[in-house]
C-alpha cells in the first residue's frame, strides 16, 4: 500500500514554509510603508493591491472586456488625501512558495530569492527618478485638512 503519510507531512511542511516566507515578504513591504509614512508626515502608504489591465479604448472588443487580466502591483497611496488615488510603482508577483517574489519595472525585472534581495530591490525601486516623481505626486494630493483651510 502506498505510504501517503510522508507526502502529507511534506505538504504540511511546505505550506508552513510558504506561509512563513509570505509573512516575511509582506513584513518587508510593511516596514517600507512605515518608514515612508514617517518620512512624509503620514502622507505615504505602500501596499500591494490587485489591479485590472487598462484597455485601449479605441481598439478594444467585447471579448477584451470579458477577458480583462488582473495583476498585482506595489502602489503608493496618500491616506490623508481627500480622495486617495493609489499610484502604481511596480508590478508584483509572488511564487506559491513565497520566494522568489518578482518586482517588475519598465526597464528591469528583479527576482528576489530572499529577504535581503527584496529589501535591496525595494530600495532600488524607490530610488529611481520615476518612483520619486510618483511619490511626490501622491504626497501632493489635496488633503482633507486642505479642504478645512
Amino acid at each position, binding site marked *: 500500500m502506498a505510504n501517503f503519510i510522508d507526502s502529507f507531512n511534506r505538504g504540511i511542511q511546505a505550506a508552513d514554509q510558504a506561509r512563513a516566507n509570505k509573512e516575511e515578504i509582506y513584513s518587508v513591504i510593511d516596514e517600507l510603508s512605515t518608514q515612508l509614512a514617517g518620512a512624509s508626515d503620514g502622507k505615504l502608504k505602500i501596499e500591494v493591491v490587485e489591479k485590472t489591465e487598462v484597455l485601449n479604448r479605441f481598439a478594444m472588443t467585447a471579448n477584451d472586456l470579458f477577458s480583462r487580466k488582473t495583476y498585482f502591483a506595489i502602489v503608493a497611496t496618500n491616506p490623508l488625501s481627500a480622495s486617495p488615488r493609489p499610484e502604481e510603482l511596480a508590478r508584483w508577483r509572488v511564487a506559491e512558495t513565497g520566494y*522568489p517574489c*518578482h518586482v517588475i*519595472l*519598465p*526597464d*528591469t*525585472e*528583479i*527576482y*528576489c*530569492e*530572499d529577504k*535581503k*534581495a*527584496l529589501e*535591496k*530591490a525595494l530600495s532600488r525601486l524607490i530610488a529611481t527618478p520615476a518612483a520619486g516623481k510618483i511619490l511626490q505626486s501622491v504626497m501632493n494630493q489635496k488633503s482633507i485638512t486642505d479642504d478645512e483651510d
Partner: protein
Amino acid sequence: MALVTNLTFAWWNTSLAPSGATRSTPLDRTIACRVISNLITQVGADFIALGEMSEVDLEAIRFICQEFDFEIKSEITKSGRSQFDICYAYNKNKIAVVESKDIVDGVGSSILRIAKRIDIVTPGDDTIIHLLVSHWPSRLYCYKDHSDRHLYALRLRDQFTRLVEDYGPNPYVVMLGDYNDEPFDASLCDQLKASRDVDLVRKRKHLLYNPFWQYLAKRSEAHHGAGSYYYKDGKVTKWHTFDQLIFSQAFLTSKSWMYRHCHDLVHEIPELVELILNPKMRFDHLPVFGRVERISQNG
C-alpha cells in the same frame, strides 16, 4: 512595405571587454569590425548580439554597422556591483525594437544577470519575437554545477513562462548568448528544458529546441573548430559549445515563422579561428547564428 521573409539572429562574445571593462587594442577593434561585417555579408545576419562590450568598443564598431544600415544599441547597464556587457546591432529595414529590459535575480546582496529581453517586430507584422540575450558568468567565477548556474536557468525559464502568460500559449522566443554551460549541462537541459529532440519539442509546448547539440564535436575534417569557445588550458577538451541559440516550440509548429535547419550554426571564419588558437590574441569565441523563415501565406 513588403513582409520580411527571413531573419537571421547571431551572437558573438567579442572578448573585447570582459564585464564591460575595455581591454581591447585598436587592432582588436578592427578585427571585431571585420567579424561583424562578415556576419552581415556572409551569414546574412539581421540581428547581432555582442557580448563583452564596452562603450569604447561600441563606438569603434558603430561606423561598420552604419555602413550596412544597421542600428547599434548599447545595453551596457549597471547591475549590482558589475554590469551587463551586451550590445546589439540590427538591420533597421527589417527589424524594429519594441522594448528592452534587464532581467536580474537577487540572491542576498548578489545580483545574477539573467538576460536582456529585447522584443522585436518586423514591418507589416504584429507578431512579436522575444529575444533573451544572456552572458552568464565564466566557470572561473561560478564553477560548473554551482547552484547559481541552476538559478540562472530557472529564472530564464521563468521569463519564458511569463511570456506564455502574457502573450499566449505559444510565443516566439529566441534565447541566445554565452551560457558558459554546454547544451548537456543540467542548467540548460533540466532547468531550462532546452532539448536536442526536435520531434519531441514539436509535440510538447513546454520544451525548447536547442540545435547546438549538433556542435559538440568537430563535424568533419574540413571544420576548423569543435565548438564555439576555445579554452587553451582545457585538459580533456579545449573546445566547448558555450554559445548557443535556443528556440521556442512556436518556431517548429506555427504557421507564421519557422526555424530553418542549417548545416553550420557556428560560423568558422578561418582567420578568426587562427586568432583564437593564437595564445597571444584575446579572441576565444566564434560567432553562432540561427535562422527563421516566414511560411508562405499562399501555401
